[in-house]
């Protein structure tokens, strides 16, 4: 297992995301890096992982490669079940999805995500400073999957005490039973993977807690890039860098066209 020396920030996210996924579980996969990480997991340690895509496909083998979209034709071929969006989300609401795997543009210390807008809220909602695409299925996954895995590129501007808009609810304000009291199901954010490390959410306070630093990062460097105070696990460790084989698989087999994992400039 030789360690890669030229992996990119996106590649370590993909490897970390894949490792969080457990074999034989159902994962509801959002668009982008979650798709790449899920496919890598299937082709490495989790061949029994069952991906669900919101356009409706359940458990496709993905033999034809990485889907460009969560409604891609590649997700339909060989699927065990295929209806439409209502079918997929009803499964999730019912409790069939062990994991939801989503990204966002902005995150707070309780794992709430924003993918709707940047600017003043509520006054600026109708004319936002920056308009983002919107929830898609992320808020449904956040409200109804049993546990959610989040991906957010690490940047002080994106890790904020207060979000412009809560699109996908996490642990809300961190108060006891906040999710249950709001009417939601599921345990909420389980892991957050960023370009700098891996986080869980501390059991009592539900606050974001650093558990693994990525190579080259320290607790201090990660805190410095975060707009609120992080909790740090007592036994925080360094996440092993991706192996040459993992990086090769991402570049040659999982995302050979660089659809979601951009190639480093040569």
């Amino acid at each position, binding site marked *: 297992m030789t360690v890669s020396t030229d992996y990119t920030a996106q590649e370590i996210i993909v490897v970390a995301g894949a490792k969080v996924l457990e074999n034989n579980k159902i994962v509801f996969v959002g668009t982008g890096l979650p798709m790449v990480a899920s496919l890598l997991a299937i082709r490495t340690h989790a061949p029994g992982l069952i991906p669900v895509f919101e356009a409706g496909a359940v458990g496709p083998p993905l033999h034809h490669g990485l889907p460009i*979209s969560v*409604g*891609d034709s590649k997700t339909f071929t060989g699927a065990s079940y295929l209806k439409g969006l*209502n079918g997929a989300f009803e499964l999730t609401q019912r409790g069939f999805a062990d994991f939801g795997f989503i990204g966002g543009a902005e995150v707070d210390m309780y794992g709430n995500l924003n993918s709707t807008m940047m600017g003043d809220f509520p006054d600026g909602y109708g004319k936002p400073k*920056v308009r983002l695409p919107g929830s898609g*299925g992320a808020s449904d996954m956040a409200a*109804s999957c049993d546990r959610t895995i989040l991906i957010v590129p690490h940047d002080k501007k994106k890790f904020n005490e207060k979000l412009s808009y809560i699109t996908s609810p996490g642990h809300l304000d961190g108060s006891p039973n906040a999710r249950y009291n709001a*009417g*939601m199901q599921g345990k909420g954010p389980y892991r957050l993977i960023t370009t700098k490390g891996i986080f869980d959410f501390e059991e009592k306070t539900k606050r974001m807690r650093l558990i693994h630093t990525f190579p080259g990062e320290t607790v201090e460097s990660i805190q410095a890039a975060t707009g609120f105070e992080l909790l740090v696990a007592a036994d925080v460790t360094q996440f092993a860098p991706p192996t040459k084989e993992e990086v090769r698989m991402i570049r040659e087999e999982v995302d050979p066209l660089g659809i979601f994992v951009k190639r480093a400039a040569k």
Partner: protein
Amino acid sequence: MENNAKMVWTGLSPDDAREALVVKDKSMRDKRMTLKEAVSRFVKPGDNVGIGGFVNIRQPIAITHEMVRQGFKDLTLSFQSAAMGPEILAGAMMVRPDHCSIKRIELAYWGHEAFGLSPAWRYLAERGLIEFEDWSNYNMSARFKAGAMGIPFIPTRGPLGGDIKNTSRTKIIDCPFTGRKIALLPASNPNVGLIHVQAADMYGNCIVRGTDATCAEIAMASAHTIVTCEQLVSHELLVSNPKDILIPFPAVDAVIKVPFGAYPGACRRHYYFNGEHIREFLSLIAPMCKGGSPDALKAWYDEHIFGVENFEDYIEKFQTKKLIADQAAESYNCERFA
């Protein structure tokens, strides 16, 4: 009960939607017509328009081109996740606001996934040129489903917890059975649904391959539905396995055979994405977000929509080689005998 926004039905009210079907001619008759005729008969100023497909999959692109050619006014667009459909309509509003105008959008997501963000969405929203109401994919799908079920609302978990419930007409109640909080979403009954499918017969029965998206719900909820299809087949063939029929004929008002009708998006069994063309189109809109000139975008509309008679002429502008390559890419995705 938390009352978040004043209730206004932005399409048909449940009672009006019911009445629209009661008075409609539901006979099994030949509904083939030109796209020109379908759009001029069924898309009216002020309409709430339900857009089928999902992101860049099976979007009713040919219908949106015809709408742009004819012009449209004060529309409300309703969809879960859409891409080139609203992009074409909104881009037209950016270059010809006198001819094309969108008043409001009810949506879960407007973007192109791997192909990029939607510059037209940013342009219209960040300048405050349209009203909009954010929902999630399940929220919009469930709202169409409630419309299709003939009920005024549907309970879901989706908008609980976050801000979607605060910026939409969601109502939160204590569930009368469990006592826990539950969200109620208003039904969506568009005036007209726009749907592209793989196969239809002349009466409007439709077969869809790959995801159903929310097409059946939109067609059943809408007062009128325009269907374009890749393949127009005999009624006998279409009904050979009745359970294959996703949309039944009484829900459909117009049937038009339009090969490549979802292009440059993808259509299962027929063609994969033309990502280059999608990116190229977006790159004409993007500079306008930063105050750039509309000339390049206007030229695109003049050449590809206003300057042609119909969608077939637009498709003819692509190299045959490219069209065949996109078909070949799709036949790799779902290998089968012809």
